[in-house]
């Protein structure tokens, strides 16, 4: 089968998968994540790193544009799959493997992609095309999952903007005053909706000055998500949901080891392990996290919600408190299930006001990594129903 075949065989043992989570796609996403971990595959952080684009949940026809653009950014060999049910993740991914192994098919696909190659020019200001230019130039679309590759344009002197050239077809950024009164470039960057480790369906339209967010507005362009832990007699859904939130926050904080262990607890809860068992494990994990001084130092004091901000239950907490809260709520969920038939568990962050509304206030003046931690520290799913406001 030749060298290409050998490379392909070796390559598909470790596929990188970019997960695009549609609204209400949490359950299939978790199923895919579990499948990836089982196979030793990797979750890609950006489309450039991915072999497989996996859309988790159903994407209505009108919202497929952003997905299409993500797909356009995969370098190839590439495969695309949509997982809507939790039980067929493995089979779907196997289908991708077959597609990736089909070297001839991939070649043909790639040739099609390059139908209109522009002049490849690596000189100054040259444009490096890989057949993705058309998708990148369209900045009126706000639903671009990734930050646009082409949006790195910086400001321009404040005169004669109209007749300035637009290199690469990208208009220039504007400018604004920073908190010290200096005139700085303002770059508009939408975060979401298909960003890894990001609440599904949320778009945070940020104005960046350097790596600091100076203004933002939230949006749910695809409407309100319906999920969140389904209120039911069993606390299992709540356990899974809160562990999932905690795991996202841990991964963003760079605590990979803790995140891996938390994911395994979540997966065993998904697999139907006894909730008592889960409680023991997650309590020992929480104890470990509490002892982690460096992690505490990273999360302490950021995203602090002042008293009287209309978010009962999470006033006076910071990201660290909310991380601990996620674990505690999950632990409470296990207790609720093993005890008598408990009603929906609604203490903690859940059902408490509308944290999404507060996001623009909380992230203003923060560096991007802090912004991501703050966003991840909230349980936005149930609250999103009342949203659609700008900050």
């Amino acid at each position: 089968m030749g060298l290409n075949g050998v490379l392909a065989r070796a390559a598909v043992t470790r596929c990188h998968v970019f997960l695009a989570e549609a609204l209400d796609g949490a359950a299939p996403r978790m199923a895919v994540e579990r499948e990836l971990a089982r196979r030793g595959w990797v979750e890609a952080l950006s489309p450039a790193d991915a072999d497989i684009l996996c859309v988790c949940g159903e994407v209505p026809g009108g919202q497929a544009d952003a997905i299409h653009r993500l797909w356009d950014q995969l370098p190839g060999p590439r495969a695309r799959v949509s997982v809507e049910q939790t039980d067929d993740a493995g089979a779907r991914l196997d289908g991708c493997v077959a597609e990736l192994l089909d070297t001839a098919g991939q070649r043909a696909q790639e040739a099609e992609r390059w139908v209109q190659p522009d002049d490849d020019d690596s000189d100054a200001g040259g444009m490096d095309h890989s057949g993705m230019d058309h998708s990148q130039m369209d900045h009126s679309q706000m639903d671009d999952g990734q930050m646009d590759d082409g949006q790195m344009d910086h400001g321009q002197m404040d005169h004669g903007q109209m007749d300035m050239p637009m290199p690469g077809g990208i208009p220039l950024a504007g400018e604004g005053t920073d908190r010290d009164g200096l005139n700085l470039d303002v770059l508009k960057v939408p975060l979401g909706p298909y960003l890894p480790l990001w609440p599904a369906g949320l778009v945070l339209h940020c104005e960046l000055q350097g790596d600091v967010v100076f203004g933002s507005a939230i949006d749910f362009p695809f409407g309100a998500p319906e999920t969140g832990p389904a209120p039911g007699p069993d606390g299992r859904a709540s356990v899974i949901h809160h562990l999932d939130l905690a795991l996202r926050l841990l991964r963003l904080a760079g605590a990979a080891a803790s995140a891996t262990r938390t994911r395994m607890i979540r997966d065993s809860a998904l697999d139907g392990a006894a909730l008592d068992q889960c409680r023991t494990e997650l309590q020992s994990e929480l104890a470990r996290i509490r002892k982690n001084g460096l992690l505490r130092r990273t999360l302490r004091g950021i995203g602090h919600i002042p008293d009287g901000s209309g978010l009962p239950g999470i006033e006076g907490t910071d990201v660290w408190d909310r991380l601990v809260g996620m674990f505690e709520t999950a632990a409470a969920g296990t207790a609720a299930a093993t005890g008598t038939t408990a009603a929906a568990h609604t203490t903690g962050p859940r059902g408490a006001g509308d944290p999404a509304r507060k996001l623009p206030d909380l992230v203003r003046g923060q560096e991007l990594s802090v912004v991501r931690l703050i966003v991840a520290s909230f349980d936005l799913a149930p609250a999103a129903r009342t949203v659609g406001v700008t900050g």
Partner: protein
Amino acid sequence: MLSAVLFVVLAVVAISAGVIVFRTDSMARATYALAVSFVSVGIMLLQFELEYIGVITILMMVMEMAIMAIFMVMFMGMNPALMPMDMVHNKKASAGIAAGVFALLTAGILLADWPARHGVPAVDLTASLGEAIMGPKMLVMLTVSPVLFATLVSALVLANPRGRYAPSPVVPVEPENDDGGSHQGGGHDGHHQHPGGAHS
């Protein structure tokens, strides 16, 4: 022979990289072209067996250019990868000055009465260089360098006591309407540009 060829190649690289600094329209490229020029000079110094000076030239210049790139981009406020930009200003005067300096230096090289070498280089050039610089002036160096360093740090601290990320009361208030402006709290100057130049 080989070393002569290497020397010529390095000299050509150094000069052409220097030319590129002014010919390119990208600030990042201009900065790192200058770095390449300096690195070539550093390697030429290595050829003279001035190892310490050669290596330290490379070290300092690469570090300096890495920092300079930040400042250039920061103060120019333009992305040169996108915005072609002329790297030459005040062309006539600078051309005149350049020609004059070149003539002066060349004349100096050609006309100077270069002394013949007497004695041999020290065994350990680095050590003798250190002796020459530091030996009689150790006290001065010891005083000057901490003072310089302290001045730099304290100037920075005075200029920006909060740091970039610390919470600050002067964070711009959020825009009332949806024009997406990034406004200074307290109405800095009335006429905000629309930052959405990106949408025009």
